[in-house]
């Protein structure tokens, strides 16, 4: 059978411009057109070749910025490749920015017409399918209301329905659908399976390797714009996950054991991991490394970063000796972020009270790359924390508590 998508040696180059590239005539005139030229080029995609047969799903996995979305755009003929060719046989449907093409002031019906025609149908075809589109989206009662009165779920449902009713031969999906409620999602998946069985080729972008393993006939792993692996989903997904795990370990340079300021030996790849582009130089637990349950605790991290690092993440966890994590947080979990770090610095976590039951714990902490791709420096089971409790030791938590016994007579009697 003829392949639905044929991509040959595809390459896409982006230009990086001067940060102060003029955006207006006035600025261009003032800077004398000096900054109009790109500062440098980089290849967002290069040497990409693959084919997708009708009725097949290709899953693409990779980190942010690996070129997944760019590839999807190029397959959809949005933008122009700098190298190679893309050939698509049949109409393309795209489940990307669902509902972006809708206009709030027009009714659902009017929007269906505009969008379905934009997606490639003729007026007559839309008129024939209108009923099915509305029925699938479950919007029979509100199809003549302006779309601005719709909920997000309704808009997405309608947009999804329009796309699947164009009966595309090629479907492009960016991060698998979360359209509407669980029931509707099941309906969407069913419809996509139906399209697939009718011979629609599907390209699915996902950051979830497991999902790709479950759904796809073929998988491709993109790394920095190039194919890192391509083939059986189980194999590719496995490789991808394995590399994610080993990334940190690989980047850890060999270095003789060092002593932390508190005197614990730091041994690379035993209790210390990371690329050491930034280092944790000292950790202090205040008021002390031995506290009572329910006391406040401050964890101070001093770090040294020889080069400038953008938006690093700091993470801290508390674990038991057996490795069970009792508490885990990071600055991004609080939706904070550092713009960049360079040189010496200090960051402190204040825990207002720590209600763990009495036991021996460890504080683990790390500085991570901004997308959590790997660690710069991660200290594991280096800093002990002893928590004393007067109460029994079993259980993980020891929050403040009291019993209230509401058998009125008993207490009354006792008081009397």
């Amino acid at each position: 059978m003829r392949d639905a998508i044929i991509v040959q040696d595809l390459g896409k180059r982006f230009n990086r411009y001067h940060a102060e590239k003029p955006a207006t005539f006035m600025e261009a005139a003032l800077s004398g057109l000096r900054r109009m030229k790109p500062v440098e080029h980089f290849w967002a995609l290069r040497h990409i070749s693959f084919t997708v047969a009708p009725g097949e799903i290709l899953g693409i996995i990779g980190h942010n910025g690996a070129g997944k979305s760019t590839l999807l755009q190029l397959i959809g003929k949005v933008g122009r490749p700098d190298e190679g060719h893309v050939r698509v046989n049949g109409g393309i449907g795209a489940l990307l920015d669902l509902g972006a093409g809708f206009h709030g002031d027009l009714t659902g019906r009017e929007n269906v017409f505009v969008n379905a025609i934009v997606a490639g149908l003729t007026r007559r075809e839309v008129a024939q399918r209108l009923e099915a589109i509305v029925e699938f989206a479950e919007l029979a009662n509100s199809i003549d209301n302006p779309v601005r009165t719709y909920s997000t779920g309704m808009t997405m449902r309608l947009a999804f329905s329009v796309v699947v009713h164009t009966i595309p031969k090629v479907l492009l999906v960016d991060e698998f659908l979360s359209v509407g409620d669980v029931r509707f999602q099941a309906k969407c998946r069913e419809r996509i399976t139906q399209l697939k069985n009718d011979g629609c080729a599907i390209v699915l972008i996902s950051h979830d390797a497991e999902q790709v393993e479950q759904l796809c006939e073929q998988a491709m792993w993109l790394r920095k714009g190039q194919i890192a692996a391509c083939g059986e989903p189980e194999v590719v997904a496995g490789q991808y996950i394995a590399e994610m795990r080993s990334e940190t370990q690989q980047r850890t340079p060999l270095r003789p054991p060092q002593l932390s300021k508190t005197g614990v030996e730091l041994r690379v790849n035993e209790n210390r991991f990371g690329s050491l582009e930034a280092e944790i130089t000292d950790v202090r637990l205040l008021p002390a490394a031995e506290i009572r349950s329910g006391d406040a605790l401050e964890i101070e991290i001093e770090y040294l970063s020889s080069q400038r690092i953008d938006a690093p993440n700091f993470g801290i966890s508390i674990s038991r000796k057996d490795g069970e994590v009792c508490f885990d947080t990071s600055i991004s979990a609080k939706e904070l972020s550092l713009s960049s770090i360079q040189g010496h610095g200090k960051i402190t976590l204040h825990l207002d009270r720590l209600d763990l039951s009495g036991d021996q714990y460890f504080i683990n902490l790390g500085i991570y790359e901004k997308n959590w791709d790997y660690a710069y420096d991660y200290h594991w089971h280096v800093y002990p924390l002893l928590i004393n409790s007067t109460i029994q030791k079993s259980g993980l938590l020891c929050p403040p508590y009291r019993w209230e016994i509401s058998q009125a007579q008993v207490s009354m009697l006792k008081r009397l």
Partner: protein
Amino acid sequence: MTIFFKRNTRSSLSKRKLVYLYDLLRELVVREMKLLYKRSALGVAWTLINPLLQLAVFAFVFQLVLPVEIPDYASFTFTGLLVWNWFQTCLFQATGVITANRALIRQPGFPIAILPVVTTTTGLVHFLLALPILLIFLLLAGIELKPVILYLPILQALQFALTVSLAYVLAALNVTFRDTQHTLGVVLQLFFYLTPIFYDIKNVPANFQFFYNLNPMVHIVTAYRSVLIQGVAPNWQPLLILAAVVVICLPIGLQFFRRQSDRFVEDL
């Protein structure tokens, strides 16, 4: 036999494509019209009210305050206003088409080049809706319509092509220089006065005539007036030159437009 069959499917495919492009154009124009009037109580009447108000002001100023001697001033100026408004509104709006339609441009297979055509067609619809009013003015002034009025569609087609080719270039420029549209607004305002809309080109001193002749809209407005008011065939020579220029510039503008809209969707 196979060859015949192949050719047949290809031609039916391209027929579907034509139907599709027509439907797309129609649907997008209808959308523009609907959006324009969705929230306005006066609806389509705005198409007429705007030039009529302008006409009232010019008639007041140039008939009562500073009288100028132009026969049939109302028809004369109204013709100019309709033609110019079509040109000005469409060019201004079309300049923003790439930046304003990201969602459409990102749609796989969407023929981006249709966008300025949609804007200009919408303008043409407004122009046609206002045409009966113009005819009423002509009849009231006792002007007899001559068969040369049949040249009207040719003039409209030429103006259409001119607007679209300028729009391609300007919309493409607007991607790099986001102030193109604002600058254009000012420039168009100036050219409104530098085009004989509410005055007669005969009153322009001879040594400035050369510069006026460089403005394509001067020839187009004059041609409309020949056909509608004077009832004579337009002066074909400048129109033919203009048509030739448009034929050359349209594909170049289109190419530039395509490249810039590709760049726009790729913007990181």
